[in-house]
């Protein structure tokens, strides 16, 4: 592990961007005789920018309609070049609302030609912005795996986290995705993401997936493939909320108490490489937001990437990593340990 005590990025209120923890993540790994190193890069997760049509309370990106940081064509090309050259199996496009960058469709259609599986983290409501109504058809034509945020199957909880009116639009968007075959046709995968609306851990994934399946079907005749539970990461806007609501200490204690050593071998940072809107490389999207770059011995941007150099690299960690190791664990693909 690499110590990061020297890094002191701050929030707007001047407080540190890292959560305060009763124990360091490094110590916890050592205590359990664990080391955190990467395997092969199987997933290239590209965060194309912080621009979003929403400003959710739990967003670890601090994304919003006022953000201007978006990926330019030259960086998109650098990512495509890596996909072509090294045949990375999966491209995971995230943001912000990734659809909002001018080169989004170019990125998807070109990436598809490389044979990579393409996932897009889609917030559902962006479909109702001007010029995006045909997104379901575009996704279907390119067999994009769509991963949609929906924190709960009820309006109150969803709107409390994601903004007034979001639930109603999300339901309409899911119906449109179903209408083009998502969640129905074998090649059109529609996955949902649950995350807690507050300072508590997610439920057991299969149990809450069954609730979502039953409730969305009965109430709205909506179907989907899988539901992923994701633990809220104590950084960025969610950390601000934890502090405002005086939950930071108890939430961190909860994460530390729930540390599960069995999650470490399945953490997403092991097989994922994260790219930011400028092309800089990180071990995960959370480290990216904390400006916790990849280990200094390695090339720092996608333009200089070569896969063999990135195998068995030391993952940078800090207190926020307890968010991925609590309970059954958490990743962009849901739980990591049973």
């Amino acid at each position, binding site marked *: 592990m690499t110590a990061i005590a020297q890094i002191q990025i701050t929030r707007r209120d001047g407080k540190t961007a890292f959560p305060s923890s009763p124990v360091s993540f490094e110590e916890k790994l050592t205590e359990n005789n664990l080391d955190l190193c990467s395997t092969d890069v199987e997933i290239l997760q590209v965060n194309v920018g912080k621009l979003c049509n929403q400003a959710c309370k739990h967003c670890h990106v601090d994304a919003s309609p006022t953000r201007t940081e978006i990926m330019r064509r030259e960086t998109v090309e650098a990512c495509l070049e890596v996909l072509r050259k090294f045949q990375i199996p999966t491209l995971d496009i995230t943001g912000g609302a990734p659809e909002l960058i001018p080169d989004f469709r170019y990125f998807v259609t070109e990436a598809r030609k490389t044979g990579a599986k393409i996932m897009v983290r889609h917030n559902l409501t962006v479909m109702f912005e001007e010029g995006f109504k045909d997104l379901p058809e575009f996704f279907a034509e390119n067999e994009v795996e769509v991963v949609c945020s929906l924190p709960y199957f009820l309006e*109150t*909880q969803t709107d409390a986290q994601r903004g007034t009116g979001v639930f109603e639009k999300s339901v309409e968007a899911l119906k449109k995705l179903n209408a083009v075959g998502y969640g129905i046709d074998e090649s059109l995968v529609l996955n949902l993401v649950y995350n*807690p609306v507050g300072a508590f851990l997610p*439920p057991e994934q299969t149990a809450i997936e069954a609730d979502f399946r039953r409730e969305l079907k009965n109430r709205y005749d909506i179907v989907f493939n899988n539901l992923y539970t994701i633990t809220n990461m104590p950084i960025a806007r969610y950390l601000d909320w934890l502090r405002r609501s005086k939950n930071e200490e108890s939430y961190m204690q909860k994460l530390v108490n729930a540390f599960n050593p069995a999650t470490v071998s399945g953490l997403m940072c092991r097989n994922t490489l994260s790219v930011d809107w400028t092309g800089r490389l990180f071990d995960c999207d959370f480290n990216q937001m904390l400006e916790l770059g990849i280990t200094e011995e390695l090339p720092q941007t996608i333009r200089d990437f070569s896969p063999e150099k990135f195998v068995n690299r030391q993952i940078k960690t800090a207190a926020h990593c307890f968010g991925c190791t609590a309970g059954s664990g958490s990743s962009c693909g849901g739980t990591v340990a049973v």
Partner: protein
Amino acid sequence: MHYYNEEDLDRFGDIAKYKPELFEKFLAWYQACQEEGALSKREKALIGLAVAVTVQCPYCIEAFTNSSLENGSNMEQMTEAMHLASAIRGGASLIHGIQSHNAHDKVSM
């Protein structure tokens, strides 16, 4: 000055100080009761919340509110559970009114 301190919930284990073997037995029983069985963890958390409200234990109320949320329940479901438990408690009081009726009938013309 108040008698309940929030941080005492984390000190529950201190009860073992003078009689560890009894607390160990209690803890094993308490934890086993909450495991998935014929009832799901979520159902058990809701029962726990309903009982907690009924016995008016602030520690249990906090613990089982969190447990219910972490097992996927929402406040509508949790409130229904709390109402049922409270209604049973109210009903248990009210049925004792029959004792009053009986006493009244005994001494009345």
